[in-house]
């Protein structure tokens, strides 16, 4: 793999800054993620990765800077508009709708806000079939009628992923997909990411599990103190002195 053959730009930020009181969580970060790749975003705890995610997806308003998606500015757009532009995301501590069934969880995703579409029955046969397809894909189709809160944590993670996929995003941002799940499930999630990537979906993954990041990602960006300090192919990143310093403090 060669990082220099940088292809199309997927998501990028320019001098994006966000501070909370006196703490600058994201500090003039200029980052570019590549289209069609599995991009990794790593960094020590508190380096601003999740804040970066939240700024990009509109959950938090950046104080300054630009966010562009496929050449168009999405700076300060509301999260739902970012989602409908084709960026799906998962949350760090896995968020599903606890008192809705697994199927209902999948039917939430909105791509088309036209009134006619919105007043149609939620249990539209085509939509149900599409939802079952994704449930089968992540392996929880047998739980279709269960309430989401009765699922195990791992199953909820899979459900969240299926819910995001239901919106048919072109770009999927995952915040710690391997956090708190057993090794077998990490394997399943990694396989899914690879398959979906082969089908043309771009991934941006925040992850602490280095084994997963190194084996899965094509391109890795390393964050420290709110800004990127290195980027490149995983093999190169592993040897980077600045990265080792940020992680080990040597």
């Amino acid at each position, binding site marked *: 793999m060669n990082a220099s053959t940088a292809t199309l730009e997927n998501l990028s930020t320019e001098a994006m800054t966000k501070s909370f009181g006196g703490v600058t969580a994201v500090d003039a970060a200029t980052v570019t993620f590549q289209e069609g790749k599995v991009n990794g975003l790593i960094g020590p705890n508190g380096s601003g990765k999740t804040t970066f995610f939240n700024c990009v*997806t509109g*959950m938090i308003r950046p104080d300054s800077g630009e966010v562009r998606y496929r050449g168009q500015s999405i700076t300060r757009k*509301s*999260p*739902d*508009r970012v*989602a*409908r532009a084709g960026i*799906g995301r998962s*949350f760090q501590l896995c*968020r*599903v*709708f606890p008192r*809705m069934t697994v199927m*209902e969880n999948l*039917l*939430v*995703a*909105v*791509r088309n*806000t036209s009134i006619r*579409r*919105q*007043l*149609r*029955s*939620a*249990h*539209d046969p085509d939509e149900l079939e599409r939802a079952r397809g994704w449930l*089968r894909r992540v*392996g929880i189709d*047998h*739980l*279709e*009628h*269960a309430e989401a809160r*009765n*699922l*195990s944590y*791992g*199953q909820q993670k899979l459900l969240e992923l299926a*819910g*995001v996929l*239901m*919106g048919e995003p072109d770009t999927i941002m995952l915040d710690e997909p391997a956090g708190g799940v*057993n*090794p*077998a*499930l*990490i*394997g*399943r999630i*990694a*396989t899914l990411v690879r*398959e979906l990537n*082969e089908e043309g979906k771009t991934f941006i993954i925040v992850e602490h599990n280095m*084994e997963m990041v*190194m*084996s*899965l990602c094509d391109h890795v960006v390393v964050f420290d103190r709110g800004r990127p300090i290195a980027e490149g192919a995983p093999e190169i990143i592993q040897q980077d002195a600045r990265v080792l310093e940020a992680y080990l403090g040597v």
Partner: protein
Amino acid sequence: MPSVSSREPIATETVVVAPPAPVRRRSATWVRIVLIVIGAAAILSFPTIAPNPYILSAGVVILNYAVLSTGWNFMGGFTGYISLGHAAYFGLGAYGTGLLIKYLALPGFVAWIVATVLVAIVAIPIGIAALRVRGASFVIVSIAFVLIMLLVFQSWRDVTGGSEGLNVPRPFPDMLRPEHHRVFFYLFVLVLAFALATWWIIDRSKFGTALKSIREDEDKAQSLGVPTTRYKLIAYILSAFFVALGGGLYALWFGDLDPIFQFSILIGSYMVLMALLGGVRNLFGPLLGAVVVGIALEYFKLEFGDTQFHLIATGILLGVVVLFMPDGIIPAVSSLFRRKSDQASIREVTAGELLEQNEARKAAGSAPQRKADAETEETSS
């Protein structure tokens, strides 16, 4: 590059096994239809059965509460935003109707419809402002709103008549009292049916699913593309519309408006209590709650007279509901029935069954998997 997929998932984490489909669904549908028919028949025959005009007028009051509570449930039930100040829309609908008759000399029922539409328009800026906050803050904003309305309508004597009240001319001046009650009873039934039908359409729609996802987790819903700000506002306006519709009809029926009653937090609290009691997730929850609370209120008032004791009794009722039936009567009763039947909602499985299921799933899952692999190979070559 080391492959993570070499660690093939071991299919051992199936913890919960839900039934493939609710087996008793068809019979449950029949039970529901029969209950609805019985309920509708009971309501429609009430004016004929009612022994005296007083009981009939109590029926009108209860139906009015049912309309208000169902209207409140467009907001409270779908999105989980608890408004304690919805009496504001009850009062605005009532006063709007009365004032349009008084100053523009509109016919009663025309004034009612015009006033309701006007209130729905007024609800737009109020909704935009109030829905900027969530949770407890929204509750407080809603209370502030009804209190402001109370002050305005009390102090603006020249127009509203202040505490002296506003007299609303009857739409049927020649009609005798019992007949008048009967006509309005059926008018309230019509409005209630309209509100219930609208709620039902939304409940089963994609829009309704989006609203319910806001109730569960608003940020998450937004991240899935739900335009939460717009959808909440639509629910809020619909809610205001139906509560105002109930208020306007009340004005035409009762004929006398007083700000202290029209804009009271108590009326708003009743709407919430009734909806919670019956079950906010159910179409008929607020109606059932209105019947129970409405009868209880009338009974307490008869029993304890004009004291404030009925308030204490209502408070105790609310406490009991929250403690023992947090989801309301309808879910509590239906889960009681479900427990009686041998089919649990999520059944436990033995290790043997689990193994069998996993085997079966593997067999079923591997076939399409292989097909998918073949497809990706084709496209890549």
